[in-house]
């Protein structure tokens, strides 16, 4: 979907997230080991790797969602726009407003579809009026490729949607707050090919303004949407680079066997 010219101009982009020597422990389990990675602005970065290798864990470090897990301990240095996000003065709530997240399992609020999407803008005071809010909700639902299906029942419960629709609702909810970085943990795992294509389109569109990090188990999807790819294996970042290079010319043996389907 993306030609080589667009991959070229990746080099000139500013770095959004920079992680150095990140270690994550769940109690005694060492889940992330010594990860160094730079996530660029206006770029889609894909995290791939076998199940349980720590992709979600690392993603959750980027917006400090791991703070909610008592046994989770994080070491190392993660900077957003040059600022240490684990600094004591950083309010994780402010950070999460900037770094939105779509979770691996769809988790709509048990409220109406409208309220699901409007919740973020409401608490951040993004809308000046009811009409304003309506507009934000419609725009977000359109970007989440859900508008046409729900426009007649905005006040029906969000939990009454199908699994794939719920996931798109969660995407709409995440983009409604206009985050600078969007973290997506397997956003398409419950979607049909049409909805997947729509979400991928959304990712491509978001990329114009934001930085997007996507975890995926689909090599094709990683190849289609991302410019950078990181391959995780057993908590290590094995290889990180241009998506084209990783898929056509991997440096590490493990990467090669994973993308050709021999481990994972």
């Amino acid at each position, binding site marked *: 979907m993306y030609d080589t010219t667009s991959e070229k101009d990746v080099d000139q982009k500013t770095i959004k997230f920079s992680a150095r020597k990140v270690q994550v422990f769940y109690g005694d389990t060492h889940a992330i080991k010594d990860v160094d990675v730079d996530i660029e602005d206006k770029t889609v970065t894909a995290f791939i790797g076998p199940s349980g290798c720590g992709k979600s864990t690392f993603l959750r470090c980027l917006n400090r969602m791991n703070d*909610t897990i*008592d046994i989770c301990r994080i070491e190392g240095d993660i900077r957003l726009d040059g600022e240490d996000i684990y600094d004591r003065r950083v309010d994780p709530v402010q950070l999460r*407003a900037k770094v939105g997240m779509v979770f691996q399992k769809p*988790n709509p609020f*048990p*409220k109406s579809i409208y309220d699901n999407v409007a919740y973020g803008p409401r*608490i951040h005071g993004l809308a000046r009026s009811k009409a304003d809010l309506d507009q934000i909700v419609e725009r977000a639902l359109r970007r989440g490729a859900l508008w046409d299906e729900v426009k007649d029942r905005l006040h029906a419960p969000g939990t009454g949607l199908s699994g794939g629709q719920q996931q798109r609702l969660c995407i709409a*909810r*995440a983009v409604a707050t206009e985050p600078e970085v969007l973290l997506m943990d397997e956003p398409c795992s419950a979607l049909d090919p049409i909805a997947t294509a729509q979400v991928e389109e959304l990712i491509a569109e978001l990329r114009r303004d934001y930085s997007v990090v996507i975890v995926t188990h689909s090599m094709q999807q990683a190849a289609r949407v991302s410019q950078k790819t990181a391959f995780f294996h057993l908590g290590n970042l094995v290889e990180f680079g241009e998506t084209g290079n990783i898929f056509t010319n991997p440096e590490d043996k493990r990467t090669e066997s994973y993308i050709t389907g021999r481990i994972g």
Partner: protein
Amino acid sequence: MTDATLNGDGGRPNGSLTTQDDRTKARNRAETRFKAYGLAAILVGIFFLVVLAVSIIRSGSPAFTRTVVDVEFTLSQSEFEAAEEELFKTKAYQSLFISTLKGQLDERGVEVAFDEAAIERLLGKVGGTIREFYTANPDKLGEPVQFELPASSRVDGYFNGRVTRESIQDSRFLMKADLDLVDVLHDAGIMKSSFNWTFITGADAGVDNPGGAGIGASVVGSFFMMLVVLVLSLPIGVAASIYLEEFAPQNRFTDLIEVNISNLAAVPSIVFGILGLAVFIQFMHLPQSAPLVGGLVLTLMTLPTIIISTRASLKAVPPSIRDAALGVGASRMQAVFHHVLPLAMPGILTGTIIGLAQALGETAPLLLIGMVGFVARGYPEGIAAGFTDPNSAMPAQIYTWAARADAGFYEKAWGGIIILLAFLLTMNIIAIILRRRFERRW
């Protein structure tokens, strides 16, 4: 059943789907048995409930009626003045009343012998009641006034079968001959059964006057106590649970608190009574026998119940909801108050209502802080200052009545239980309505 059944080789795994193999049959039998056990358990439960309800209603309903003598009585100004001149004023009124009663019986053509002593045995000190009335309402002199005079509890007992001619012996409380008079008065329509409003609205009476005893004052006392319990234990309990469940770090200290709360829920309520006596009355010098103190003691007792059930219902809210809220940049408090708490609300309400119901029926701690057997003074005028005025509570009142010798009080105790259950039922219905409200919001 069908041809296929007949031809199929049932019992083998590759048999026809229309026949049940042995395993399936065994499983289905087990399921049927289990359903039967469940149904039996429910039926047993219903049976006991019905027995309970019937016996309570049967024993308690006499408390709601009382036997009264309904007499139209006229006192002229001169009779009033003459009676006031007498040495034994109430005696004078009593003889006037008796002559009126005689006159009314004569009018109906009934012939029966009775004397002042008999009237006193049946109706108590009638003269006093009449004198009190006319001293308070002198403008009623000369007009006919309808007097409804409550009969003694033994007469009540005679009508509902507790007292029979065979069971009594002549005493200064009731003679066998008096029952003839009772029959006559009853047949003449002068003595009749009427709804006992005094029981619903009145306060406790002395040990020799079960007819005048009412539960009203202790209903008010219980109501004030429940108000104190609700206002204190719900916010404190919910706030404590939210803090422990959503904010507190998981460490030794919070573990210790958790263990202590679980233990507190199992502490016998009389211990809370002693604590209340020592702390609220002896140390803080709060008034004795007051609904405020009772409410405080019951709050201590209810808190663990509310905290435990609230924490359980907070825990039952899926963590993904919290993640979702935090993920769009809500603070922890916003996540709790906007999303977690509404979902936990039905559970919290259930716990609260169980706690309140327990507190409402609790007697033991009230015995220790003196909220028992209390004849509320100044009732009903004293209700306004109800939180600190001495009062009783429903279960304590029932306990007092049940402990008294006069069988009339025994009926009152059962009647009190009916009122208590009605209170509980109302509370439960309110809780169910509230729960529906919250549940409809998914």
